[in-house]
Structures are given as C-alpha cells and as structure tokens.
C-alpha cells in the first residue's frame, strides 16, 4: 500500500486529509479522556 507521490502537493493533500480526520478524533478523544480523568473528582452537577 505504498503510494508514490510525485509532487509535494499530492503528498500534502494526503497527509493533511488524514491529519484533519485525526484532529477531529483527537478533540473528541481528549474530551473523553478529560471526563475519565476527572470522573471521580465530584459528581457532575445537573441543572
């Protein structure tokens, strides 16, 4: 599955697309981890 890139543009297009997807996943992942991290601190208050 090794793609040959002949131009830097093609390379960037591929890597940036992946990065954007990972960024989205990462943001949700961090939020989840934050909740996991602080889960025992105190109960989440409901309004």
């Amino acid at each position: 599955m090794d793609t040959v890139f002949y131009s830097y543009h093609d390379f960037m297009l591929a890597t940036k697309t992946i990065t954007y997807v990972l960024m989205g996943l990462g943001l949700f992942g961090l939020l989840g981890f934050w909740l996991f991290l602080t889960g025992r601190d105190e109960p989440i208050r409901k309004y």
Partner: protein
Amino acid sequence: MNTHDNGAKNTLLTPGNVITAIILLVGLFITVLRFTKGIGSVTALDDNNPWGIWISFDLLCGVVLAAGGYTTTSAYYLFGLKHFRSAVRPAITSAFLGYAFVVFALHYDVGQPWRLVYPIFVSQGTTSILFEVGLCVFLYVTVLAIEFSPAVWEWLGIKKLRSLVLPLTIPLTILGVILSTMHQSSLGALYLIAPSKMHPLWYSSFIPVFFFISSMFAGMSMVIFEGILAHKGLHGKMDALHLKQADGVVLAFGKASAFVMMGYLFIRFYGVAMDNNFKYLFTGYGLWFLVETIGFVALPAFLYAMGARERNVSLMKIAAVITVLGVVLNRFNVSQVAFNYQLDASERYFPHWMEIGVSVFVVTLIITAYRFICTKMPVMYEHPEYKDAH
C-alpha cells in the same frame, strides 16, 4: 426596527430611520444586480485583483472584529475573571452576528454561493488555507450559535433546551478558542502563498501569528468599542450588574490590550528584521508601515497604559477606537495596499461604490439585528427567571 421601542407613528420619519431605509433599499438593489448581472456589474474586481473590500472589510475585518467572543469567554470561563460576567453575553452576541454576517457577505463575493458548503461536504481541498478558514468558520458559527442560544431559549422561555446547552459551555469555550486561533491566524496565512505579490514589509512567514495576536486586542478593543455604542443606544436595556461592571471591563481589557499590543509591536519589527527588510522602511510604503505600527499600535497601547495607570476610562475608550481603526487599517494594508504593490497604478484596485454599498448594507444589517436582539433578549441584562443560574 426602532419604531418597536417608540411606538409613536410620528417618529417613523426620523433621520436614522430614513438613512437605514435608504441603505437597505440600495443594498437590496445592489443585491438584485449582483445576482442577475454578475459580480462584474457591481464591483471593480478584475483578473489581477480578485479580492476587493468584500474580502478586506467584510471577511478579514469582520472576523477579526468579532474576536471579542473568544477573548471574553476565555477570560470569564477559562481564566476565571469574574468581573467579565456581564460582558460575556454581549460579546457572544456580537461575535455570532459578526460571523453570521461574514458568511452572509461571502454569498455576494463568491461566484457560486450555493456551493459554499462544497469544501466541507463535497470535495475537501485540505491543502488550502482557505479550507481551514472555511471549516473553522463553519464550526465556529455553529459553536457561537450554541453559545448564544441560551439567550434565545430564555427569551422564548424554553427551559429544556437551555439546560441542555449549559453543560456544554466549557468544552464549547475551549473549542471556540481553538477554532479562533486557527482561523484568525489562517486569515493571515492566506497570503503566505503569494510572496511575490506582497510588499515585503507586510509579507512575513509570521503573518499568521501577527493576525492571531492582533485578533486578541482587536477583540478586546471591540468589546470596549461596542460598549461605548451600546451605552449610548441601549443604556435602558442594561441591568445593574452590567452597568456596575462596565468600567471594570474597560479597565481590564484595556490593560490586557496594552500589553498584548506592545508584544505585537515588537514581533512586527522582529518580522522586518528576520527578512532583512529595513531598507523598505525608508520608502513611501515604509512610512505607511510606520503609520500603521506606531500610529495605530504603539500610540493606542500607550493611551491604554496611561488609562490603566490613571483609571481613566474615557482615555481607554479613545484608545479602543484607535485600536479598532488600526486593526482595520492593518487588514486593508495586507489585503489591498501591500497586495499587488508591484503592479502599475492603472492595474491596481479601487472599490466600486456598489461594493462599499454592500459593505455598508451588511454593517447596517448587523446593527439592526444587534439592536433587535438586545431589545428582545436577555443580553445586556440577566433574565429575571434565571438570575441566580446565569
């Protein structure tokens, strides 16, 4: 809109209303022209100058002047500066309106506005800085809409939706800062791709940083500036807390602005040093660069500092106006004065009156919408039912 407050029929023909009506009519006329005869019929754009004031003012200035949203929310929610409490809602409101109308104004500028969602849903050109701007603006408008929505729910009395949104405040604030950082800087990064077309004094590989840092004090100064306007026009809509905190907001944001602006001033000159562009400082463009940096950054920074030392709120308000003008000047310098600087005068761009007309139209719409929201919804005051919970 104004008549809603006054009610009496004889006030319908006030100068303010007449001017608003004329602007809206002219705006509608240009809108019709734009969407029937094409962009060329209402603009002075050409093949050398594809971006006019609809980008310079409506997009670049519009976005940077709406930066008050993220600065205020992060100051209040993230850094725990409680005396910004009353400034949060107005700032979110104006940011939301600012962004909404940036998107609205873009419909005039792009050739096929019905395809504006293409970059997000159809074909993602991820190498483009504009893709990033588009994605961030799209997400940030959504974030701002959610952040703003409690005011609507309170106004409409829908408690359920309101309580659904409130727990999201902190994540949304953080997301808002991330998105703002990205697209505020990316608006500057748009110009990274055209080094040969930009005057060296304004082209720098640090231009994204310049745009981001300037968005901080632009946002803060805009909050102060909007405060001045709101106190003149909407004084009656403010509650005690708002009035009590108003001066504190000015002092705190002014002080912060002053410090950020000094840092910004230095990095602008570091940029000149790193590209060895000192020689250009002694040309006409250099003079203009100094006017921008000294006259519209260093000067208001000093005014802010003096205001902070002497607790002089009115001096800070003057500084805020100069700062806002300076940021507008900077965005125009980057996008118009420095861009295509090497072309002959005959090939340069000067806006068509109808372009200015559309921009004025958009600004009028923002003001009108802002007035409507502030008179109807709990923005300047806290809704009596949710007073403790706010």
